[in-house]
């Protein structure tokens, strides 16, 4: 079963930290479909965190289609996230490697590349415009 932790001072809201940890566990294969998430009460007492925060995180995961509650039983993983190892990502990875080589050739360092990536991810794509 997943173990949660909270990093205060990160600027990231605690409920989002829990959401990220579940998503990460799914990506790493530590959680898979059918697994039960710990009860809200257990997380609250163990991590010393507000039960409302845990509920909010579980609700967000439910909205993302990753978990579903079974009343009286618990909250279960019901969705999957693509794992990084998946073979079908190989063409994407190769394309990205080519792009990175071009970016470095253009004189961009790691941080500039990350900044550019973040900015592009957040801005609407041609199709969405």
């Amino acid at each position, binding site marked *: 079963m997943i173990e949660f932790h909270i990093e*205060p*001072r990160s600027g990231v*809201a605690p409920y989002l930290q829990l959401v990220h940890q579940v998503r990460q566990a799914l990506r790493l294969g530590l959680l898979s479909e059918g697994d039960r998430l710990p009860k809200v009460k257990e997380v609250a*007492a163990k991590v010393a*965190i507000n039960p*409302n925060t845990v509920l909010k995180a579980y609700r967000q995961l439910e909205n993302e289609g990753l978990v579903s509650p079974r009343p009286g039983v618990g909250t279960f993983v019901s969705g999957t996230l693509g794992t990084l190892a998946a073979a079908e990502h190989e063409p994407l990875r190769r394309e990205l490697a080519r792009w990175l080589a071009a970016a470095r050739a253009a004189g961009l360092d790691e941080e500039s590349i990350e900044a550019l990536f973040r900015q592009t991810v957040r801005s609407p794509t041609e199709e969405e415009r």
Partner: protein
Amino acid sequence: MTAIVETRALHKRYGRRPALTDCTLSVPAGSVVGLVGPNGAGKSTLLQLACGLLTPTSGTVEVFGAPPGQLARVGFVAQDTPLYPTFTVSDHLRMGARLNPRWDAALAERRVRQAGLDPAQKAGRLSGGQRAQLALALAVAKRPELLLLDEPVAALDPLARRAFLQGLMEFVAESEPQPTVVLSSHLLSDLERICDHLVVLADSRVRAEGGIDDLLATHFRLTTARRDADTLPAGMRVLHAEHTGRQSTFTVRAAAPVDDPSWVMEPLGLEDLVLHYMSDPSESAPADPRPVPEPQR
């Protein structure tokens, strides 16, 4: 959502000194509210007004929709966790059972056992952490619908503090309906974990209040080449601006981060956010920053 504690234009003065000024607040049912602010900001005064130990100079405070005083429904742990030093742990539990109509003896005993307290030990010989755990056990065994805690963890070491917060959150999570908690503390990292609402007090006034998630999601530090605050996008409210010869650092409130190659916009974090509201006397920041002299070279 129903309000458990509601204050309207609440004022409290001690002689000439204002302890709480024009405080209008609403504490929703089932929330855990953190009170932060410098010593003397009015935190203890607000808690004592809510449990009826103090009466307002003017304005109103209502608890469960009525003037404070329904003591059976309210748990209060004052600063320094007052206990009777010559009473043993089990004396305290017995006293609690006699004095409280809704006393949950099983809960009290479980809590005392969990905290590893010796029932025969005199309260005066307990460590700070053990005293806090006993005080919490007494307060929660009343099965209060509202729990008021005045700096419950101030004197505890990190281990005892975590144990206390775990006990507190366990109580909140297992009670039905979920109780409302208001606690004061200087330890923002604790409040970030356990609270969903925050009230920042300074100089007897409420400087900021809101859901912690909302506060975190809307406050940013923006670092950029020197520019005036009024050249920033319209959706950003500049709370504070600092300029050096080349650089400007803004504390801004915005609905979401805005990416721009010319600046870095990061979450402010709860600590800096609270420090800002504690120290800035003007609630709304000036629209145009005062000219800052160039540094001498």
